[in-house]
């Protein structure tokens, strides 16, 4: 059975449930290189938001610094954006979202931005479980500064100018897993359908959702041997399941037999359907997830899909026990205690 969602929303002149067209999700013209993986991911972000009928005005697009981090300018101009500092997007996100719990935060970062300068903020963001979509556009190099190794570069990776990378790569998904992140996915810019479905799922997850997306840098790191190239990805990608997102308001239409897949219900009532492919994989098993990463790294394959999901961890706004109203919308009466209360306090200092 086909998924109806897709059909309903296709066609450029159509509108989504918000009454918006695809055009309403557009950004400014990209200034990235032609063919850059980041552009393809930006397209999928727009598609996911359009198809999920997310009001662009509720979205904030945040990023650090890098080619990847520029891309928020190239999607959804009707959303507030913040291209902040190199490696510091997590802290900006934390403040921005906590004070307005109704915002939907889409963070876009690079591998340099997240795994080199930013690994500390990344880990601490995950510990706090701030609700946001955190996309790492992973190309193994610093694109914007012209092609130096980043911390995710493979140990044997070779760059033209620089030679061979001698250091062990940071595995963004592994870091996320051991920081107890509740939504860990890996994908490939050359697999737009999967990217889109995963972004949709991430948007429905109430907690930090990490997507480590291999996003080739066509200018500095697209040689066939590079594990961050299109060619390598095409050849070595092994999806661990087939991912389909079904929004809350849609009938679930399953195109697999019982036992051939799992359904994960997300916080907002939508469902993620994970159809079994070659092997059985249970994305709710943290240890299995860790082992998957260990093994696929050793075997040098690109396992993609939803690697781990755990919906049972409270997001930060709940830990903080915030009022339901966004803090930014509280009025003076809510925020400034009464004159009498001050007199009482003063009494205690006498």
């Amino acid at each position, binding site marked *: 059975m086909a998924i109806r969602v897709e059909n309903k929303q296709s066609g450029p002149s159509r509108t989504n449930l918000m009454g918006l067209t695809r055009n*309403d999700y557009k950004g*400014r013209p990209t200034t990235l290189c032609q063919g850059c993986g980041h552009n393809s991911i930006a397209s999928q972000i727009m598609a996911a938001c359009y198809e999920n009928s997310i*009001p*662009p*005005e*509720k979205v*904030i697009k*945040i990023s650090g610094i890098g080619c990847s981090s520029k891309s*928020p*300018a190239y999607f959804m*101009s*009707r*959303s*507030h*954006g*913040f*291209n*902040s*500092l190199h490696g*510091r997007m*997590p*802290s*900006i*996100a*934390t*403040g*921005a*979202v*906590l*004070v*307005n719990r*109704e*915002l939907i935060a889409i963070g876009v970062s690079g591998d340099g931005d997240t795994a080199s300068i930013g690994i*500390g*903020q990344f880990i*601490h963001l995950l510990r*706090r479980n701030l609700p946001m979509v955190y996309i790492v556009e992973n190309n193994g190099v610093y694109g914007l500064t012209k092609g130096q190794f980043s911390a995710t570069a493979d140990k044997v990776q070779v760059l033209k100018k620089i030679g061979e990378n001698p250091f062990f790569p940071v595995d963004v998904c592994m870091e996320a897993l051991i920081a107890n992140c509740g939504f860990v996915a890996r994908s490939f810019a050359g697999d737009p359908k999967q990217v889109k479905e995963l972004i949709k799922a991430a948007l429905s997850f109430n907690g930090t959702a990490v997507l480590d997306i291999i996003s080739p840098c066509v200018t500095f790191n697209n040689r066939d041997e590079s594990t961050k190239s299109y060619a390598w990805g095409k050849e070595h990608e092994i999806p661990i399941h087939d991912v389909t997102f079904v929004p809350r308001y849609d009938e679930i239409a399953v195109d697999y037999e019982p036992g051939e897949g799992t359904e994960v219900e997300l916080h907002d009532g939508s469902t993620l359907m994970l159809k079994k492919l070659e092997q059985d994989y249970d994305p709710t098993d943290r240890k299995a997830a860790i082992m998957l990463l260990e093994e696929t790294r050793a075997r040098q394959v690109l396992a993609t899909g939803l690697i781990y999901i755990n919906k049972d961890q409270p997001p930060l706004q709940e830990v*903080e*026990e*915030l*009022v*339901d109203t*966004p*803090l*930014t919308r*509280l009025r*003076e009466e*809510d*925020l*400034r*205690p009464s*004159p009498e*209360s*001050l007199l009482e*306090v*003063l009494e*205690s*200092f*006498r």
Partner: protein
Amino acid sequence: MAEMQIAEKVSNQKQREQDPIYNDFSMVVATVNGSGSQTANMAIIRSLFRMGIPVSGKNLFPSNIQGLPTWFTIRASSDGFTARRDTTEILVAMNVTTFIEDLEELTPGGVCFYSDDFAVPGNRNDIVLYPMPIRKLVKEVNPPAALRDYVANMVYVGVLAQMLGIEMEEVHRALETHFTGNKRPIELNMSMIEAAALWAEKNLEKIDPYFLKREDKTKGQILIDGNTAAALGAIYGGVTFAAWYPITPASSLADALEEYLPQLRCQDGGCKATYSIIQAEDELAAIGMALGAGWSGARAMTSTSGPGIALMAEFAGLAFQAEIPVVIWDVQRMGPSTGLPTRTSQGDIFFVRFLGAGDTRHIILLPGNMKECFEFGWKAFDIAERIQSAVFVLSDLDLGMNLWMSEPLEYPDQPMDRGKILNEEDLERLGDFARYRDVDGDGIAYRTLPGTNHPLAAYFTRGTGHDEYAIYSERPDDWEANMERLWRKHETAKAYLPPPVIEKMDGASIGLIAFGSTDPAVREAQARLVGENIRTDYLRLTSIPFRDEVIDFVRSHEKVYVIEMNHDGQMRQLLQLEMPDQAVKIHSIRKNNGLPLSAGWITPALLEAEGG
């Protein structure tokens, strides 16, 4: 009796016929930190305060947790001078390792209460020594073993009460306050205090001139530290977000937020928070979070000290350039570098003013007392949101962590100023929105908050060059136009900043300029200088950039001295930069050794400068 002998022996050599001195001394309690003397010291200072005697309490503590020398100074001053005093008239010696040195610092004619198991050196015949049989007295009261050391401190409370004349009832009330009415500890401590007082009454002969007596000079006043006042100010300023990372001497500001927010800002019965306080993983994250929150529309702040300020430099530049409101408290400690984490200084002025690459400049507020810690606590948000920039509040360890007598904190006299924000209706009406356009000619552009439900609302925030629509631009004219507007904006800011506090004296020939925690010392020095026939006007700075009143003050005096606690005379230099044509007449009086300034130092320094 052994004790009496010593007191007797010394007294024999002294002019015991001195006139009594009432309510005017500086007392140092020398202990080791972590020994629990804080309760005892608080009991003493509170008692004096409630006896109507002006007091201050300053803790000189080491940068460790337990076992090193600590000195708590209590100054009682009938004249209301509460600055640090260079001389110590009364020493309570509880730390054997510093005993000899502490004794040496005691002023001639001074008094020493000491634990009777310390060996007294023979070289001070000009002081009065009172031994205290601490071990013995503790044994008599016999507190639970775990509390023994702690309760031992009450011995000196009792002895002092007896020998100086602290009213026992006030001591009891002070303990009640301290233990918020919790009976058990109050009784235990009181029994120790009373035993000690009784012992002193029986065994010590009063041969020193220092007495306390009830006055009426603290009525209506409060006793508070600057970090608590600042936190309260922020709360009454409607803080909705604070991120911080522990660091001395700023931590207690965040502690006070955590303490008071739940009780003052609970909503609907109190279980849900109208604020969020995050202990960040470091200062980079703390200011980043605050910036994110400020951008999103919160009243956002962070608090730190020198090393943390250093880590905030990049984000501070972003706040300036991207025009994001955020409040940053710098409770200054001694630098450079890690410096002396538990000593005070005013050394971050230059660093904070220019914090960020390129032509970054920051607004600075300079509270000089408890009322201003509170006032600038709320006002800083108004200014930050009005000007859309970082506002730094420069406090220091002395102001922030020590106990100050103060007029009661004043409830905000203005409604919150949220600055120029456009909402859905505004956008609909205007039909266009350019984030960085100077619509009003004051340099301040309008902003929208994320989440504003209008297709025109969004803009793209960045630290890079941009045009009026916030779109990236490398055009030379865009850059220049934006910078000019930013400067215009910071010019506008002056009107929103607190004015300096100016006090003129008839016949004054010179002007004094100071700021922050040195205020009491400067005032005391002024009084002393009058005695030396030097009359002074006094301007206390409360903000940077300098308002016109500051310029006028300098212009209207032939000679101006800037008194400050840093090595370079940083504020003097900022003033000189502001007024090159007045530069030569602006002089520096500066001292920076970790101790709060004293009139005893300022007065001769100024006399010397005037003489030379």
